[in-house]
């Protein structure tokens, strides 16, 4: 199990004297800001990937920038690893505590500092919930575009760390496209502003490098977000297909026609039926797949595009094309999609969500291949896709109480990710590598590339204390993992000793 950190394959630090750690850190924090009791630690043992659990030596809850600086400086001195956590909704184990390390929880940084309706910006602390930004901007006719499915709960700091996407990023971009600057603290306590209030900042684009760095480079303490005006009109089409491949071809037809939908989502039969039972969205339960295609913009243009897309869908073999009659029905159609993950509880006791990306044209091939892999592993898979941008979320169904089922799910997940890489895609579109996909990094990147990532990390964190064992594998891990997975006939990391 990957929640077991291995000193040989991940990282090793001097043992922590818990009393010394408490004596050093507790005075830096407000009352109740230092937790090291067994009960309290248990509450933080996992993030949104509950299959992985591990206990830190202590949890710290700072409230000010100065406290964050002081904690990081002290941890650097003591050589104690630090894992930063926001709302803990991440799906890749990125906020899984490092055993014996400090878990730095940023939930007290929960204030929206300023909404500037003229500059179209929001200055927020990292613990602010994603949806709270759009709610605060709404009275000005503005919104914050990235909308991950967890937007009710997930926080902006985590969104920056993961470069979060969402169902509307096809048109509006990922987190990196929607932030102007981040204030970060590095392990030595230095406060840096990357990016700035102007269109770009002097020097290298460090804001872009930092976004999506999964807590390996620094701790986010403030973010300047870009807001945009709410579209005048938003309409949603639901199209049903009796064949998943035909639905995939319809996606290609829409994109090739020069339409940029605000969102273009796909669900296969098992996923849409579970979602329908869960959310009563009004989906046709006999369909093999459905597409949800949202168009927004100026009212007349939207009406024209809806006509065009409807025709394209019919020509692609849709058995039914339904346009949401009103805002209420539009919300219901989306509620099914947004509730697809929790709905899996109806199909199996547990599910494991995969996050690969592929070029759109490979979708029919990858779907067929995934079906074959699932069968070979003896597990069911329900599919939910951000089809417009080729981001797949196969949901592997398993039962954690059955011996060996989780291991089977992990193995199937790994095989699906390697399938994505083999068609020119990526092992993660938006959930991050975290702990979960650390081995698959060795499939996507060469030794020289992994080395470059370690060198970039060392430029920010020379001691390697920030989120060790996550996101970027050690060469030792790749040598070990590569021994089992020969890629394109070549053994990667061939010269390294295999453990």
């Amino acid at each position, binding site marked *: 199990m990957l929640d077991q950190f291995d000193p040989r394959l991940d990282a090793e630090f001097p043992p922590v004297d818990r009393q010394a750690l408490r004596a050093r850190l507790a005075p830096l924090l407000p009352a109740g800001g230092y937790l090291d009791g067994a009960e309290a630690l248990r509450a933080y043992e996992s993030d949104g990937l509950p299959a992985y659990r591990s206990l830190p030596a202590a949890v710290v809850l700072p409230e000010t920038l100065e406290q964050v600086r002081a904690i990081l400086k002290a941890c650097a001195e003591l050589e104690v690893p630090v894992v930063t956590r926001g709302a803990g909704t991440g799906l890749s184990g990125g906020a899984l505590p490092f055993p014996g390390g400090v878990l730095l929880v940023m939930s007290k940084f929960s204030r929206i500092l300023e909404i500037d309706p*003229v*500059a179209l910006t929001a200055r927020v602390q990292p613990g602010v919930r994603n949806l709270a930004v759009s709610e605060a901007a709404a009275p000005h*006719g503005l919104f914050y575009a990235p909308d991950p499915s967890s937007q009710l709960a997930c926080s902006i700091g985590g969104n920056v760390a*993961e*470069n979060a*996407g969402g169902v509307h*990023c*096809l048109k509006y*971009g*990922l987190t*990196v496209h929607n932030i102007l600057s981040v204030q970060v603290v590095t392990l030595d306590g230095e406060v*840096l502003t990357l990016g700035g209030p*102007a269109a*770009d900042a*002097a*020097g*290298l*684009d*460090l804001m*872009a*490098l930092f976004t*999506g760095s999964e807590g*390996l480079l620094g701790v986010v303490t403030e973010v300047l977000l870009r807001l945009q*005006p709410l*579209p005048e009109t938003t309409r949603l089409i639901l199209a049903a297909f009796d064949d998943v491949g035909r639905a995939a*071809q319809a996606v*290609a037809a829409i*994109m*090739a026609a*020069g339409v940029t939908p605000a969102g273009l989502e796909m669900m296969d039969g098992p996923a849409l039926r579970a979602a329908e039972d869960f959310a009563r969205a009004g989906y046709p339960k006999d369909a093999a797949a459905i597409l949800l295609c949202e168009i927004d*913009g*100026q009212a*007349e*243009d939207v009406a*024209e595009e809806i006509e065009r897309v409807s025709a394209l869908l019919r020509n692609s073999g849709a058995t039914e094309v339904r346009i949401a009659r009103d805002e209420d029905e539009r919300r219901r159609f989306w509620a099914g999609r947004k509730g697809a993950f929790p709905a899996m509880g109806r199909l199996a006791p547990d599910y494991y969500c995969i996050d690969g*990306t592929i*070029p759109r*044209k490979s979708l*029919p*091939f990858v779907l067929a291949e995934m079906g074959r892999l699932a069968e070979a592993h003896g597990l069911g898979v329900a599919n939910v896709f951000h089809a417009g*941008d*080729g981001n797949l979320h196969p949901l592997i169904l398993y039962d954690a109480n059955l011996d060996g089922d989780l291991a089977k799910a992990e193995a199937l997940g790994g095989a699906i990710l390697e399938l994505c890489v083999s068609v*020119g*895609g*990526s092992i*993660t*579109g*938006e959930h991050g*590598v975290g702990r979960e996909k650390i081995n698959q*990094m060795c499939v996507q990147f060469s030794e*020289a*590339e992994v080395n*470059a*990532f370690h*060198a*970039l*990390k060392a*430029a*920010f964190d020379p001691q390697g204390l920030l989120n060790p064992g996550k996101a*970027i594998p050690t060469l030792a891990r790749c040598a070990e993992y590569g021994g089992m997975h020969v890629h394109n006939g070549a053994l990667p990391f061939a010269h390294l000793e295999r453990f």
Partner: protein
Amino acid sequence: MSTTEPCPLPTSSGSDADRTAELAGAVKAAAAEGRALEIRGAGTRAGQGRPVVGDPLDVAAHRGLVDYDPAELVLTARAGTPLAEIEALLEANGQMLAFEPPRFGPGGTLGGAVASGLSGPRRPFTGALRDYVLGVRVLNGRGEVLRFGGTVFKNVAGFDAFRLMAGAHGTLGVLLDVSLRVVPRPAVEAALTLDLPGEEARRRVADLMRRPLPLSGAFHDGERLHLRLSGGRAGVAAAVAGIGGEAADPSGWAAIRDLSHPILAGGEGLWRIALPRTGPAGDFEALPWDQAGGVRWLRAAAPSPGAWEAAARLGGHIQRIRGTADPAFQPLPPPLLALHQRIKAALDPDRILNPGRMYPEV
């Protein structure tokens, strides 16, 4: 699966060649001898950086399309491919580069555009060049070929070193191939001019941008406001009617993009002063502006000595586009400069790739 075959390149591409091996060999040899290299494309952007003392590494011959499937909205080409060829190919397929890179001469290359990281007038409306870079293949300072990112829009595996290459002026790697996200051309484009003084025009644009209008350009030449609108037929028509002003020819925006508009052309130098779009402009208030007020243009041999400090105080920075005066880039605060040096060392430990092109220490 139906995929659309792209129209062929409109100009001859008989000289297309993959020179990865030769370039890697040249970098390895230079690294072994500790010899600095000056990376050269078409040489159209010589004014955008400090002089490099080093042997020339010519990447212009490493050119040609690697992959383009219009239905995927992704194009991959070698760094030496002329930007004009790429944009002509996209146009023939009803697509374009949303970041509208300025062209500084007929041969200007894709690699040069990405290395300089400059975006055109569309930037405040559709995003910057780095927002459309999906992946790169580069040579690091050891001559190793590294691939960062890929050809898919969503990809969060590994650090986004590909976005870091945009605007790094070749100091972190030799660009070999670049994969770009491309976008459909808008159905309709219109241009307007309005008689409004600079600051009033800037407030007017800020006000327009609070509404979901199909704006794609807002430039002030010192006397008049120039607006461009791109999008659906009805949306553009409604916006044009609502904004007023005089109709103009949208093709005039090429000169604004290429910085060859009469108010920007000629002289001893041109400086780009990036400022917060809606904030105070201080001493720069009288200058012509583009990008909805986010960029001021200064035509001079060099900014006044106090200008650097003034730009920083306003939350912005200055960068040379044409000319020779030093510094060419806004000086960095010491902790950030130190971080730049460490990042340089991470990817180019012997400091052989365009050393000093941005800052003497990087």
